[in-house]
């Protein structure tokens, strides 16, 4: 489908596609096997200026927005979604600063993310606080010119690899969700260490680790927004970044469809290519329909955000749910089209099926997204009366 991207957007997409084809695809299976962090590829992305596509020019970026970021994520994800999420999570870690940071904070932290010299990460989840993020236990206690952080964040993408972390912690337990605050924590701060690297089902090239804070003192200048705004910072950030997960899911799905289509044309059974069987044709058609619908919703949402809409929680959740559910369905069907070969590691589709699952879980499970969508709908309806 023709989305009438601008010349710059096409340039960004084509460049990301080239890197995905030349640098990511050849090593995707190996990265999946070893779980090695893809620094080499991230350095290529940095040198090609793709790390800053969504960052304003005054902070060293290219001046694009969510759509530009999504185009890169989608292309990378077609080849390896573990690489794509390592790239995208840097956006997740830096959007809180872009959205809520002071001029000084932006000047200090964003240019190195834009140039790709530093990665960023976002620490919200804890062992006992997943969907229920408000149940977090990590604390930040003010002590003169500092805050002292204690607690453990769990399953943080880019943990240990990133230099810049935005972390949500409790500053006032009595105030519930209004008692959380967001902080910027630099790697190397005394009292800030990392737990073990998780061994995952998919997106294995990405790193998922604990952030451990033990009497970690950070300067009070590292508070993002005001005290008590932590929850808002997290929610507004996730509204902007969920399309990135949709793009990741969409990339996996498109990659799987392309592989399945090519395979169906080559694989012969009963004396003919399996692509000549209507059962296979309909599966391919359904995959394509779902992917295009997910892409249309994603690009529209990204454009809505980039055009300055005020509230886009609902749309952001919708595109994430649709694209991730599509990715799961499409990758399962891709394995089906490959038959037994699809179940083997020699072919790329079993990895895509494993990779797809996470997109229904993180940055808010699809159940939580549906909660958000329904709540927004009910609020809108109530306002109309």
């Amino acid at each position: 489908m023709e989305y009438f991207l601008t010349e710059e957007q096409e340039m960004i997409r084509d460049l990301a596609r080239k890197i995905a084809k030349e640098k990511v695809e050849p090593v995707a299976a190996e990265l999946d096997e070893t779980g090695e962090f893809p620094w080499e590829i991230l350095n290529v992305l940095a040198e090609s200026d793709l790390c800053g596509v969504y960052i304003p020019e005054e902070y060293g970026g290219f001046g694009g927005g969510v759509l530009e970021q999504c185009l890169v994520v989608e292309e990378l994800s077609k080849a390896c979604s573990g690489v794509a999420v390592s790239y995208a999570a840097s956006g997740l870690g830096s959007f809180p600063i872009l959205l809520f940071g002071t001029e000084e904070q932006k000047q200090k932290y964003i240019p190195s993310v834009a140039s790709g010299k530093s990665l960023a990460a976002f620490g919200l989840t804890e062992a006992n606080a997943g969907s229920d993020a408000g149940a977090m236990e990590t604390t930040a206690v003010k002590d003169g010119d500092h805050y002292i952080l204690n607690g453990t964040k769990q399953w943080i993408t880019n943990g240990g690899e990133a230099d810049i972390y935005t972390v949500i912690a409790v500053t006032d337990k009595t105030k519930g969700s209004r008692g959380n605050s967001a902080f910027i924590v630099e790697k190397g701060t005394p009292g800030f260490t990392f737990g073990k690297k998780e061994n995952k089902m998919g997106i294995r090239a990405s790193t998922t680790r604990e952030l451990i804070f033990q009497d970690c003192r950070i300067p009070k200048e590292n508070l993002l927004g005001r005290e008590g705004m932590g929850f808002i910072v997290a929610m507004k950030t996730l509204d902007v970044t969920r399309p990135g997960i949709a793009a990741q899911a969409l990339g996996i799905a498109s990659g799987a469809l392309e592989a399945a289509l090519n395979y169906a044309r080559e694989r012969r059974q009963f004396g003919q290519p399996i692509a000549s069987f209507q059962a296979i044709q309909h599966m391919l058609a359904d995959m394509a329909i779902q992917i295009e619908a997910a892409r249309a919703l994603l690009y529209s949402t990204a454009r809505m955000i980039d055009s300055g809409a005020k509230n886009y929680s609902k749309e952001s959740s919708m595109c994430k749910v649709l694209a991730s559910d599509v990715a799961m369905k499409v990758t399962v069907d891709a394995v089906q089209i490959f038959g037994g070969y699809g179940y083997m590691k020699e072919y790329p589709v079993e990895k895509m099926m494993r990779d797809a699952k996470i997109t229904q879980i993180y940055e808010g499970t699809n159940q939580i997204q549906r909660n958000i969508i329904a709540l927004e709908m009910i609020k809108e309806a109530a306002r109309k009366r």
Partner: protein
Amino acid sequence: MNVIVCVKQVPDPAEAKIDKETKTIVREGVTNITNPFDMYGIEEGVRIKEKNGGKVTAVSMGPPQSEKCLREAIAMGADEAILVSDRALAGSDTLVTATALAAAIDKVGDYHLIICGREAIDGDTGQTGPGIAERLGIPHVTYVQKIREISEDKMIVERMIEDGYQVIEVKLPALITVVKDINEPRIPSLRGMMKAKKANIITMNAQDLSLDPDNLGLKGSPTQVIRQFTPEIVRKGEVLEGEPTEQAAVLVSKLLQTRVV
């Protein structure tokens, strides 16, 4: 340190076809790319500039659409680009091409090094690079796999030969042709691509270069293609008879006879 890199646009080998009648490459309707060996030349030129300062000028001769590969060179870090283009130059062989490129390079002047790819993948002659050097009266080294040292007046390079390499010291200005072992061409950056999009490509025609109109294009080229054909491959197969052990003995003696082992 000023470097000139020569680039040529060639048909993408993934799509290239040979005309069954004329036996020549079909150039219509196929995607054109920058000659892959020239990419190594551009990369090496840009690396030299990044280390030693100066500028990189990309030069190409070809039809107007060759501009695309000059813009690619700029996206990778070249500073300027020159396109030598003239209808009168169509059909030129390597001698005329080398003459025209040498004239353009001479016009640019003030260079320390000229880099060409080892050959263009469409013609496969590898003659244009040395031809340019001859026209300019400067030394050249072909098949360079590594630049060990480079300064304003000389360089030490490794020249690839069949089973090893030679170490050669050469005075500058000089011309080298490079092989793919020399580097890994970078992926262009977004900023580079933006710059390339806006860049002004200097074009020169035969008159600008004061080329002799009688010695241009097909009629000015001493190379005349009489006939092109695909050589017939004559392969003889032989099936050995007897028990496996006997067959093995026969095979070994035959291999010894033919000096394969």
